[in-house]
């Protein structure tokens, strides 16, 4: 029962390489097809390498979290890795861009990913949702079993602990959120404010959504092609949000400037859309009421000189970026505390996992004792029901201490010799511990879980 994670992310692979992989995992069908191929991988004896698999794919990473069969030894991981590289790139030589984590490292990696410690933007909340989606998909198609279920639930718990016990996700690090926070430094309340969005891009969409969330109810959208703006509103916003949006002709935006308190500029223009001379009369008409301008376009669409006009506050993508960097620094500091929490969770999980390794020993020991009692008690007790009751009761009583010892030894590598001693004492055959089929192993795990309860 080994956990293996093979994957690539923003640190190990270029964007083009990540795209190649994510394209081949874009739909559920593609992912199903790929997992089936993984399950079809077999060793020289025709036994499958992999028992369970979850496929995680996001814009920054693609990962395959696997539970290997007990007979899949060290080189199995490399075989799988080469196969994956060949599957996506047609060449096993590309395997260097994939990383591979085994057991404790794999658990640590998964918990770090879930806690957003391995993300491009540390603390970003999306990854946890994406991980849950990947897990749900695996559950739906039954590619995830008892072992990965436990692993993923532990990962979700770990992520929750990290988010609640550290400040890793508190300081805004997205441009859209930062824009709203900055506007709150100028305006007392956003409820009555009018927002004008120039352009219909992704960043504009996110920022407008944030403004709506924070109470803005008058938003005007102007795009060079009005049809695109209408489509943008239709596709990007839900019905409630749409109630607050008004699409206007691009030619009308200047008339609306004096009434606008916040202007978001996100056009694809190569020249300034708002010039210094445009704003001077606007601020006079506004009777010096503050005007907050956010230029999130590249190249810039608002003349930076405008910031010199009294009561006009201009922030461009670089200004916001610098502030985000400060918050990133806070998150990095918090990441150290978060890593400790992850480490604790990893230890707990590994203890549980190690305890599973002794299941065959416990089962075998119980069977041995039961067999002896069966033979001896058959001489004196004829009633089978009564005999079974006594056998079970005696087995539990006799083996209580040894079972506890085995469990304790499994959690502590230094005590592993105790298990060997028990095996030698009771002459337990090592072959008894090798699972021959998946069903039997699961049955044993179930038995063990009942036992330790």
């Amino acid at each position, binding site marked *: 029962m080994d956990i293996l994670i093979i994957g690539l992310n923003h640190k190990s692979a270029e964007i083009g390489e990540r795209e190649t992989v994510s394209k081949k995992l874009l739909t559920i069908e593609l992912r199903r097809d790929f997992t089936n191929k993984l399950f079809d991988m077999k060793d020289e004896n025709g036994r499958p390498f992999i028992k369970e698999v979850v496929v995680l794919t996001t814009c920054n990473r693609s990962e395959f979290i696997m539970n290997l069969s007990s007979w899949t030894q060290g080189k199995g991981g490399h075989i799988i890795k080469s196969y994956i590289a060949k599957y996506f790139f047609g060449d096993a030589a590309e395997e260097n861009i994939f990383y591979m984590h085994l057991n404790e490292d794999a658990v640590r990696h998964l918990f770090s990913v879930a806690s957003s410690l391995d993300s491009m933007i540390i603390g970003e909340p999306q990854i946890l949702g994406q991980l849950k989606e990947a897990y749900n998909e695996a559950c739906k198609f039954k590619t995830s079993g008892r072992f990965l279920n436990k692993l993923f639930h532990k990962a979700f718990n770990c992520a929750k602990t990290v988010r609640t016990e550290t400040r890793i996700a508190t*300081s805004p690090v997205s441009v859209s959120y930062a824009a709203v926070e900055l506007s709150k430094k100028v305006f007392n309340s956003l409820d009555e404010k009018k927002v004008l969005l120039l352009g219909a891009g992704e960043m504009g969409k996110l920022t407008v959504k944030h403004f709506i969330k924070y109470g803005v109810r008058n938003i005007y959208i102007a795009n060079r092609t009005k049809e695109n703006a209408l489509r943008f509103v239709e596709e990007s916003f839900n019905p409630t949000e749409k109630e607050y949006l008004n699409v206007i002709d691009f030619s009308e935006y200047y008339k609306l400037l004096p009434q606008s308190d916040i202007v978001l500029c996100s056009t694809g223009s190569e020249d300034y859309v708002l010039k210094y001379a445009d704003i001077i009369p606007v601020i006079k008409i506004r009777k010096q009421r503050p005007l907050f301008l956010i230029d999130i376009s590249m190249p810039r669409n608002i003349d930076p000189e405008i910031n010199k006009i009294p009561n006009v506050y201009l922030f461009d993508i670089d200004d916001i970026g610098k502030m985000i960097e400060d918050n990133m620094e806070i998150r990095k500091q918090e990441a150290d505390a978060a890593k400790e929490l992850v480490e604790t969770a990893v230890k707990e999980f590994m203890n549980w996992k190690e305890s599973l390794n002794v299941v065959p020993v416990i089962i075998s020991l119980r069977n041995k004792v039961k067999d002896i009692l069966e033979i001896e008690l058959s001489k004196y007790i004829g009633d089978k029901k009564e005999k079974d009751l006594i056998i079970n009761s005696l087995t539990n009583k006799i083996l209580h201490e040894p079972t506890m010892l085995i469990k304790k030894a499994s959690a502590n590598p230094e005590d592993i010799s105790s298990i060997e001693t028990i095996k030698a004492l009771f002459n337990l055959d090592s072959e008894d511990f090798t699972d021959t089929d998946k069903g039997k192993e699961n049955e044993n795990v179930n038995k063990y879980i009942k036992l330790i309860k």
Partner: protein
Amino acid sequence: MLKELYLIPVALYIFSYIPLLFKDKKMYKVFVSLIYAGFAFQTLIFFIFLSIKGLTVPVHIDRFVFFNAWILMFIVVLFGLFYKVEYVLLYITPLVALNLLIGFFVPHVHITPVMLNVNKTILLTHIVLILIGDSLFALAFIVSLIYIFQERKIKNKKNLKLFDKKGIQLKEALHSGGGYNLELLDNINYQCLKIGFPFITLGIVMGIYLSGSLSRTFMAVKPIEIMSLITWLIYAILLHERVAKGLRGKRAAIFSVAGFLLILFSLSFSFYLFPAFHGLK
């Protein structure tokens, strides 16, 4: 001597700053509570004075200074609660504590032998109106200073931290309530001006009347009257520009600062440098 009582609010005001050293949001609440407790004591002392002397003109310097501190704190507490800008207390409280300490240390002497010859009701009204007006302008002054610094930060985009909601840093704690947003600061400044101006206008009119009744001539040109009129004119221009031309923001804040500095100058001028100009001798 009742003067010793001044030390209780002073102590509370000084101790209120200690919890802030812990940089904890809960401690920020302790800070605010201690300041309110200090103000409650000030109010208690004020009512003790009222019960002993009744509603009369404060004829001793220490009482006068105490009365000034109480009105200032009363106005700041009112504004703080109304606009949810308790952080203003952080800047005003030291001024109030300083006033109380001055009240404690100055000798308990009569200050207005000449003034006592005039109509006492008008004199009391003059004092109350001027103190309320000046306190409102003092608040406008502090708020304007905050505005100028905050506006500078936003314009220069330096040391401008994005607000961290779950943080426990002192800076963040001080942002609770309305926060240092420019619109609110400018609005408080405007409200102080709008309310304070009629008070100061009536106060000055009464002062001129009192001055006239003392010297038996209307508008005898004294330096204090000139200073008062210049101050009044500055605030009148500021109010006019605000209402008619929409002057606001940094320029309005600079006007408020300049106006209050002139008030401070004219008060020092009249009370300390040339007491005779205010009919004190």
